[in-house]
């Protein structure tokens, strides 16, 4: 074997994906496989074929996701442990939430969501402090806060899911059925998307911008909780009692979250764009370079568009089952179409006409307002079949 062949062999083995997995990667997959097997053996009689497929598919995706994005493991494990802990503290029914110390202050869905809210707002402030102080350490603290907030958000939803069953077996349902619940979902999905890109692009300076949207969502959530008692768990109306809800709603919120992320990156883009004309040492110049921001904006919109397409189509299939037609020109549907057309036009401009820069950033921000109207405005100002999230 010549030296070059040896070097080649070495090279081909060097980057082998499987060899790159370390002990923890394997440990992770074993944990997931064992838990999946446990869930399957104990609950298979309660599941239909779709649920079995979903169980297996989600465990496979969790393994792969955990290999590629290590932080997801800690998140999953913390959510898993805290949720189980929260559920286990409910012994005598819902009233325990007022009595039990841990439920009252940490892991009842209400408390967990309050923790989430507080941590997101704190993280926003910390990210901005880090940005202004140009402090890496502070930014890391902000990241840790965002992760913790996301964990508490997930725990809140998980425990809430259980709480709904404690009200009554026929009342129990996945917590994505009203405006209160989807706002939590929106916050954690947007945060997760941001955290993914934070690691991918190795920059924490965008944190404050993105978390600003999440803080706004949290503010709305708190107002909604205290002014309208929205946190009460209500049984599902017959139209929502469908498996489609479990996939239609989360897919939609991946879309909304990604569009929100894109818009905030666009804000950062415009700030940096204006700063480039002036002092090269200004604070705005610590933002990532325009190319990077542009790329991030595109990726985020592409991701959002893909999932929004998926969600809208899932919604159409559900409508065909529940309302007697896959498309009824209901205001919510129509606005989903408008959002879709808007981003379709954006993507065409960028990909085929090669538009870049300032106009695209401005358009991405306008896109967020269009999305916001589809998400909230329709419920506030227009009536129709989607009257579940009324304000």
């Amino acid at each position, binding site marked *: 074997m*010549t*030296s*070059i062949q040896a*070097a*080649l062999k070495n*090279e*081909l083995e060097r*980057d082998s994906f499987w060899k790159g997995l370390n002990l923890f990667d394997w440990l992770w997959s074993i944990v997931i496989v064992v838990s999946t097997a446990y869930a399957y053996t104990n609950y298979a009689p309660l599941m239909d074929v779709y649920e079995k497929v979903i169980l297996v598919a989600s465990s496979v995706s969790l393994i792969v996701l955990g290999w590629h994005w290590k932080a997801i493991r800690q998140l999953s494990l913390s959510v898993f442990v805290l949720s189980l802990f929260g559920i286990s503290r409910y012994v005598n029914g819902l009233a325990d939430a007022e009595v039990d110390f841990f439920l009252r202050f940490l892991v009842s869905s209400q408390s967990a969501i309050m923790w989430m809210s507080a941590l997101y707002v704190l993280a926003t402030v910390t990210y901005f402090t880090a940005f202004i102080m140009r402090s890496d350490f502070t930014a890391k603290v902000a990241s840790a806060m965002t992760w913790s907030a996301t964990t508490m958000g997930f725990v809140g939803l998980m425990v809430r899911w259980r709480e709904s069953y404690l009200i*009554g077996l*026929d*009342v129990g349902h996945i917590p994505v059925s009203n405006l209160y619940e989807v706002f939590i979902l929106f916050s954690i999905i947007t945060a997760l998307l941001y955290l993914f890109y934070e690691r991918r692009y190795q920059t924490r300076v965008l944190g404050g911008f993105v978390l600003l949207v999440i803080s706004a969502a949290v503010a709305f959530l708190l107002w909604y909780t205290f002014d309208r008692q929205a946190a009460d768990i*209500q*049984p599902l*109306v*017959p*139209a929502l*009692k*469908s498996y489609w809800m479990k996939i239609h709603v989360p897919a939609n919120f991946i879309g909304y979250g990604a569009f929100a992320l894109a818009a905030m990156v666009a804000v950062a883009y415009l700030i940096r764009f204006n700063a480039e004309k002036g002092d090269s040492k200004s604070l705005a110049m610590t933002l990532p370079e325009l*190319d*990077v921001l542009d*790329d991030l904006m595109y*990726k985020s919109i*592409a*991701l959002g*568009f*893909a999932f929004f*397409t*998926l969600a809208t*189509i899932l919604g*159409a*299939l559900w409508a*065909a*089952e*529940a*309302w*007697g*037609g*896959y*498309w009824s*020109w209901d*205001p919510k549907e*129509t*606005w989903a*179409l*408008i959002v879709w*057309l*808007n981003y*379709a*036009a954006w993507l*065409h*401009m960028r*990909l*085929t*006409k090669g538009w870049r820069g300032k106009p695209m950033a401005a358009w991405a921000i306008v896109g967020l307002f269009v999305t916001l109207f589809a998400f909230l405005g*329709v419920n506030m100002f*227009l*009536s129709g079949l989607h009257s579940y999230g009324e304000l």
Partner: protein
Amino acid sequence: MYKQSAEPLKKPKKSAVWLNFLGSMNLAITLLLALSIASIIGTVLQQNQPYTDYVIKFGPFWFEIFQQLGLYDVYSASWFLLILFFLVVSTSTCVYRNAPGMLREMREYRQSIQLETLQKMPNSFSWQLKRSLDEVQQVAQQILPHNGFSARTTVTGSFRLVAGMKGAGSRLGYVLTHVAIVLICIGGLIDGNAILKAKEMLGQIVPETENIPANEVPMISRLGLDNLSFRGSVSVPEGSQSNVLFINYKEGYLVQGLPFSIEVKDFRIEHYASGQPKSFESDLLLHDPRLAEPLEQTISVNHPLIYDGYSIYQASFSDGGSNLELQAWPLSGGDNQQQTLNVTVGDDVQINLAAQPWVLETSDFRLFNINPSQDPAKKFQNVGPSVQFKMRDKTGAAKEFLNYMLPIERAGAYYYLSGVRSSPAEEFRYLYIPMDEAGGLGRFNTFLRLLNDQDVLQKVVAKQGILDQPLPTKDSAQFNQAMLKLVELFMQEGIDGVMSQVDKNVPVEKREEVAQLYVRVLQQILGAVYVEVLADEGVDTSLGIDEKKAAFFDDASAAIGAITRYGSPVYFQLVNFEHKQASGLQIAKAPGKFLVYPGCAMLILGVFLMFYAPQQRLWLRLQETKEGVSIVFAGHSERNGLDFAGQFRQIQAQFERVLTT
């Protein structure tokens, strides 16, 4: 250069100009935006409302203009369909022009690429190595597949070209998404009411606007089995069946025939413990001459019955003609006979009340009324059955009533409630008739009867010196007469009538005094009559009456004072019912879905392919030189340039590690 001058520039063909225009991105973007704006109009202006609503909202002038523009049904307006049509044409043209090239690109390795092109690429690198051509070629042929690129090698004279490619999927993604849009739009157009509109324009159909039974609707408003796609609804009472359904169309409706008939055996509503509805279900029997036996299935919201291309949904419910037993309690003097009426919801009944002809139109019966609870522990409470009806007098004017069957508690006492309103736009105002200790309306009725009985009143007035203070002038007989007049006025015109009488006859400065006097007198007479009522019942009132009976007196007096505004000569008490519901079914036929659904699948697949399988190309051009090999390594990516640049550097490093050791 030469060629151009030798061959004069030809005028482009007309068809090519059209093709360019229709397939242009500018047209596509314009259409997308136009579609968005049209859609916004449709959400801001509520669609398909009764035309009278629009007239009220916009006034006759703008109503006419908006109607001409088709704004009341934007999504089937001709201009909206035209936009959709052009979107289909534009997208099709785009696919027609680009798809062949795209599909070729997927298989094409670009092995004829020029050296200069490679060197000019943003991702390009060159080496001079003392290696043999074969060695480098072998390395390239393994490194590229190792990074996910499939490779082809060409040998031309003194140089070799290893061309790699990955992510052909994005090209396929383009084709899939754009074909999907065309399919979805065409499917949607088939399932929309474009065909119906065309038929209407040709005068083949005319919507029926009168509310008449389905079998009396003329042929011009009927649609046969040849109608490809529709979505309509029909309300079928339990135990009945229907072989037609109704399609709302403009100001009227159309009758759609079905090749089978649908029978509703039973309709059920289930409730959660908190009172909110949990499920709506219908047991259906589908009778089709083509079937040996009727098809039996239970449908519920989210679980339709799909049969022979028809989908049958649980959409709503209503009363299906419940049989009700109503007891009429007279409220005015004269006719004091109680009568019992048997009515069916949905039917009109002629009755004579207090010597006047009336029409009783019973419109709805509800078994449950889930209302917000006053009890803070419970959100909702069920207040029991109710009946809704109109009472039309001989002039044709009608008031609408809502009567609850069970007495309803308010601050410890129980009342029979009857709501009344003059038009559907108003809220119901309620008459509270107090329940007697036996749980019925007997005492109230007796009270009312005695108050209208002149003999009783005479007796009561004569028996006692009603007023404590000595009378100023008139003799007592005249005064008794005045008191009887006062009671009569109160019974006929209520407390308002008494007050307006005071306003009319008494000087301003004395009004208050007189009014107080009248009220006191009335109270005393009413009280005295009430004592008679109790005596009738055999109650001993010599030691006064208990709190409950006193409260009853106050409530009854208040109710009697309000009767004149009630608008019906009787109070109908719902005493018995036989509940019969009707299930509201929506039946749809949408053959367009056989295009739309595959289109949706293609769209999802295409979108993900386009974004996540971008086409990337790498080239290694090897040229034998005196000292070894000269290598040009270049790469190109359709999108995600930033990511690709990083990947390119990684692969470049791999080559360097292997080749320069």
